């Protein structure tokens, strides 16, 4: 086996989901984010804080890089020689990409982060020992570590505010890694309700908190396996496939340049579950 063969046929060598023994059946949760619609308003981030019991760490700890925003808006300045007020910026909502071949999973010493049959990258808080190796290995840097015991020592939620915590999500203690879960508690509720009726979750029946809050409807979320789902149609329209590390859009010479769909860091082959739709630039219109 030459190195070339290994690199060219990487997806066959690397064991990742879906594989024959564990197909994505009937669910594969995936997302697509339209960067042209995103205005960088941060509503998604706020909704995530409310839904997932995220501690607000304050200015000082934020400056130390200890913010706990599972959903963050990354800002990229245009480099077109214009100065600040005129300078354009682009926004990119960044959260856990729920990689199919997640780099974080392979390095966890206690297997606290695993791949689920639904194609999610799970994080089991009570199993985590806080080695932070997963965070070091995450190319997207979307894993957040509890450096402090926020609920008690830092009193992030004073007594009355405990009432606003989501009971379906654990309040994490000190020394535990956490990250975006695609609002797994909502997925569980929706799957349970559907299962009682002997069917699978319909498209649009379950929303993530960020999707629900997005005023521009930039985020769509759903079951990639379901051919009727909005996400499936978007991925298909953009010719983005889950188990490829190079999409049609990247092969410019083959005329794929009108496509907007791409996934971040595909060349690292984590096979992420989030597709971004490239912003349509002024110059291109």
């Amino acid at each position, binding site marked *: 086996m030459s190195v070339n063969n290994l690199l060219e046929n990487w997806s066959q060598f690397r064991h990742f989901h879906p594989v024959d*023994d*564990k*197909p994505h*059946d*009937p669910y594969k949760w995936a997302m697509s984010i339209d960067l042209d619609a995103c205005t960088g308003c941060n509503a998604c981030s706020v909704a995530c804080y409310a839904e997932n019991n995220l501690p607000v760490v304050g200015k000082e700890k934020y400056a130390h890089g200890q913010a706990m925003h599972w959903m963050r808006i990354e800002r990229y300045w245009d480099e077109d020689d214009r100065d600040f007020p005129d300078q354009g910026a682009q926004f990119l909502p960044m959260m856990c990409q729920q990689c199919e071949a997640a780099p974080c999973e392979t390095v966890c010493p206690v297997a606290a982060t*695993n791949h*689920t*049959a639904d194609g*999610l990258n*799970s994080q*089991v*808080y*009570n*199993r985590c020992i806080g080695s932070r190796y997963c965070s070091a290995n995450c190319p997207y840097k979307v894993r957040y570590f509890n450096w402090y015991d926020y609920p008690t020592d830092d009193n992030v939620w004073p007594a009355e505010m405990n009432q606003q915590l989501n009971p*379906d*999500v*654990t*309040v994490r203690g000190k020394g535990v890694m956490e990250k975006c879960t695609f609002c*797994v*508690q909502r997925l*569980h509720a929706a799957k*349970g309700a559907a*299962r*009682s009726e*002997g069917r699978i979750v319909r498209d649009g029946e379950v929303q993530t908190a960020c999707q629900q809050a997005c005023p521009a409807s930039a985020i769509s979320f759903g079951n990639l396996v379901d051919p009727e789902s909005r996400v499936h149609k978007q991925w298909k329209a953009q010719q983005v496939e889950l188990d490829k590390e190079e999409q049609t859009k990247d092969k410019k010479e083959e005329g794929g340049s009108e496509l907007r769909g791409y996934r971040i860091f595909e060349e690292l082959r984590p096979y992420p579950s989030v597709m971004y739709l490239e912003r349509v630039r002024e110059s291109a219109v």
Partner: protein
Amino acid sequence: MHRFLRLSTLLIGLFAAVGSYAVDAPQPAPMTEDDLGPAIEQPIEFPHNRHAGLRNPNDPTNSDPLKGGMEIDCMYCHTYARRSAVAGIPPLQKCIGCHQSIASVRETPRIKKLFEYWDAKKAIPWKKVHDLPDFVRFSHERHIERFISQLNRPVQEVCGYCHGNVKEMTVARRSKSLAMGWCASCHQKDHPVTAEGGKPIGNQAYWYNFQKPAADTSGGAVKAQGPNDCWQCHK
């Protein structure tokens, strides 16, 4: 020589130090995963055996319920079990709903206490017996659905898988450890996911969270293991 550095002297010193510490320090009650926890005292010693217990076989009309049980369905009082994650404790209204019409036991101490709560318009502060840690997601609905709706097993047997033989208890006591290994011991068994001939049970196909079974060509019931994904139960 330094006589106090001799090994025996050091060891005696060490044991003395550790021993005195061990005597002083308050030791927490040893907890193992099989521990059933302390006995819980309820505000009213509720007789599960009287309500859910089997009828006296020598008394088919059940004229004297004190000698046997009433065979009330568990879900008559724990009514949320079939439609939500928690089984639910019945509201006081439910107790009174029956007991206001049962004159024969009206003057017994427990029922008097019950009506004291009712007259004071106060809920009975029942204490939780089967309390799972906050990081565990358990749904009664799923298990009721599986064992009672799909497999048609008797209610008391199904509830007893986790709650023990409640129909012979007064105040409910934990009789299963509810530890993760105990849960897994059942989830790791091969459960039938289709009836004979491959027909899905209760119109539900195998794929509802069960591990996909190897293709079965013999035409018998396909079996698969229960859900064993970490995130299935941990939140």
